[in-house]
């Protein structure tokens, strides 16, 4: 615990933010970010993630609470003295300056010598592989190149921290994936702390050390990508990250880490992992990942059901099977394409899952 607090580089302490004095956009946010970490704030629009980022950059002030950077409270420091780099949503490159001038801007306002400026600009351009584009204007570059310039500009003055506000939102899918790796590699190489905001979960999973899932102004869960995916703590996280099959029911009994849940439509009783539930008799939502369901066998005899194949979608590496199970005809199972799958639409099929793979969570609001 002690070592962890020592490593804390950015600390949000009990942050509230309200624009109109009535509705809280961010509620009681506590978040610690270690030096060199890549932390993503993930959430739907209006969840408070961008507001949080703007408070860190200094463009918004918290209503309550304090933000610490390297142990120092920064609420009273204006944005231009925070030494925090930022990549904006639409890059915010200055259209009347060339790429070089854009990159030299943060160095010039710091009164750096001409030679040093030139040197650093060149290095930054080489880092993003745009060495030959220095004399062009932003409008003469493609979207991906502009993105790289924006990245280079945010890094060129060696800030203590880099913020990125949906930087890949304007790019097409292929380019977006390529840039995700590129940003990740740059992060690995120079070891700078990055706070990244996105609403795209695959982007978050690809790049981050840890992800803070935002909804409704609250951090729903803060964890590493694998834990978020495999062990979501509430129904929002389970639903927002990756695909899941949901069933609702009420709790019949509890023992140790498990509980028995009677499904609402009387389709049977499921044994599930007890994660985020109330007492016996209360409602719960069950969540199981499509790839954790096995078809055609009894398994160890627990949680065995029968379903009807509604639709088969061939996706190359796996086959996506839509089933009607327990009255839910949106039940998805992903079967690895090993050549042994031989069911047709309309067939009845047995399926089961391990109680450890199905999680009993809260009901969504």
């Amino acid at each position: 615990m002690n070592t962890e607090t020592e490593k804390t580089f950015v600390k949000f302490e009990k942050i509230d933010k309200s624009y109109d004095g009535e509705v809280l956009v961010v509620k009681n946010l506590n978040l610690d970010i270690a030096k060199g970490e890549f932390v993503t704030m993930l959430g739907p629009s209006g969840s408070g993630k961008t507001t949080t980022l703007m408070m860190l950059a200094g463009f918004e002030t918290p209503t309550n609470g304090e933000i610490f950077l390297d142990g120092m409270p920064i609420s009273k420091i204006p944005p231009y003295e925070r030494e925090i780099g930022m990549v904006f949503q639409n890059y915010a490159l200055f259209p009347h300056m060339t790429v070089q001038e854009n990159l030299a801007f943060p160095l010039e306002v710091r009164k750096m010598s001409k030679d040093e400026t030139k040197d650093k600009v060149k290095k930054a351009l080489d880092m993003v592989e745009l060495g030959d584009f220095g004399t062009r204007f932003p409008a003469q570059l493609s979207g991906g190149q502009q993105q790289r310039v924006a990245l280079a500009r945010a890094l060129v003055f060696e800030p203590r921290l880099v913020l990125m506000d949906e930087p890949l939102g304007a790019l097409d899918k292929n380019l977006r994936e390529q840039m995700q790796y590129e940003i990740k590699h740059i992060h690995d190489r120079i070891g700078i702390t990055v706070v990244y905001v996105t609403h795209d979960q695959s982007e978050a999973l690809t790049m981050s050390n840890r992800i803070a899932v935002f909804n409704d102004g609250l951090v729903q869960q803060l964890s590493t990508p694998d834990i978020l995916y495999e062990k979501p703590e509430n129904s929002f996280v389970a639903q927002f990250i990756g695909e899941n099959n949901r069933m609702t029911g009420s709790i019949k009994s509890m023992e140790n880490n498990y509980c028995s849940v009677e499904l609402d439509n009387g389709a049977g009783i499921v044994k599930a992992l007890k994660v985020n539930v109330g007492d016996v008799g209360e409602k719960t939502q069950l969540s199981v990942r499509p790839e954790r369901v096995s078809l055609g066998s009894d398994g160890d005899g627990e949680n065995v059901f029968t379903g009807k194949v509604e639709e088969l979608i061939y996706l190359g590496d796996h086959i996506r099977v839509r089933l009607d199970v327990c009255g839910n005809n949106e039940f998805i199972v992903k079967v690895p394409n090993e050549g042994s799958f031989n069911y047709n639409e309309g067939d009845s099929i047995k399926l089961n899952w391990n109680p450890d793979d199905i999680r009993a969570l809260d009901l969504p609001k």
Partner: protein
Amino acid sequence: MPIGDMLLRSVDDTQINTVFPNTFEEYKKWDKEQDQLPPEEVYKALFQELAYGNKIQVGRALTRMNYSKSGWKSLIKNTSRAIKKAVKKDEFPDSYKDFLIAANEKWADPTFWYAMGQMVNNQTPIYYYNAIDMTYDQDQNVIRQKENRRVYVQTWIKTLKVSVYVTFFCLILGFPVAHLLANLPLRYSNLLMIFVLLPFWTSLLVRTTAWIVMLQQQGVINGILVWLGILSDDGRLSMVYNETGTLIAMTQILLPFMILPLYSVMRVIPKSHMRAAQNLGAKPATAFWKVYLPQTIPGMSAGGLLVFVLAIGYFITPELVGGKDGKLIGSWIAYHLKTTLNWGLCAALGAILLAVMLIFYWLYNKIVGIDNIKLG
């Protein structure tokens, strides 16, 4: 077409040549070195053309002749009467020269004959010379007008000066307003936009007259200043019927032409640019100066050029609030167009105005680049 017609008219001198074709023909043969006065043939041709010429045509020609030298009108009218009388009686003189000189002794004055030399060609630059306070002397040399007749050069300078000032003040006043318009939340900016456009919906004359009410010595502003004790009662400022009045009223009237292009350019500058600049370490003032201002140059140029062009040719407002020394070149054009009917001079003044504009446009293109203009 109208511009071409105007340019032609500014050098056109054919009317008078259709009235006195023979006179001018003979006139050209006159050797001024040898004879002090033109030969007998010139007098004869003039006699005949005055005797049988169309009265209206001759009248128009007289107006033209007076531009070259005053006194022509009365001289010819005078002489015409004598000639008509003689013709009626069928008395043709032996010497037309003697007859004319007898009718009016000015026909023996060579300066009138010299002045005729300016009219004998179908084209004349005289209107242009007049427009810059020049005229001919008796030997056909171009000289400056007599001191008390010089008005245009002074007015040209004043017009340019006022236009530059008005453009400058519009820029200074318009920039913050446009900035507010572009950055306020929609419901406030809509209201502000109505205030900006309101003057367009009011008659120009009403606005100008309102300024007279505001600015005159017993007017609203002086009244308030005296009431506040800032001015003494006999120290009232004279802000109207002079250049100050022209400047104030024109700035107010032309302000929207500066605000609107500026606004449309500012509106599309993303707000994230100022944030990005600050994030990169620039203080707000530096961010404004280095990042925001350069991006508004297209709007400033468009607005500036627009205001300047309008200001340089403005005439109603300076005419009304300018008094004597606030008059601009546009007022003179209107005056000659409607009062003296000297359309040649009007056309010449207009052509010079056009040329001045083209020079500014060219200069502007050299310095800023015309592609940099943006209205939206």
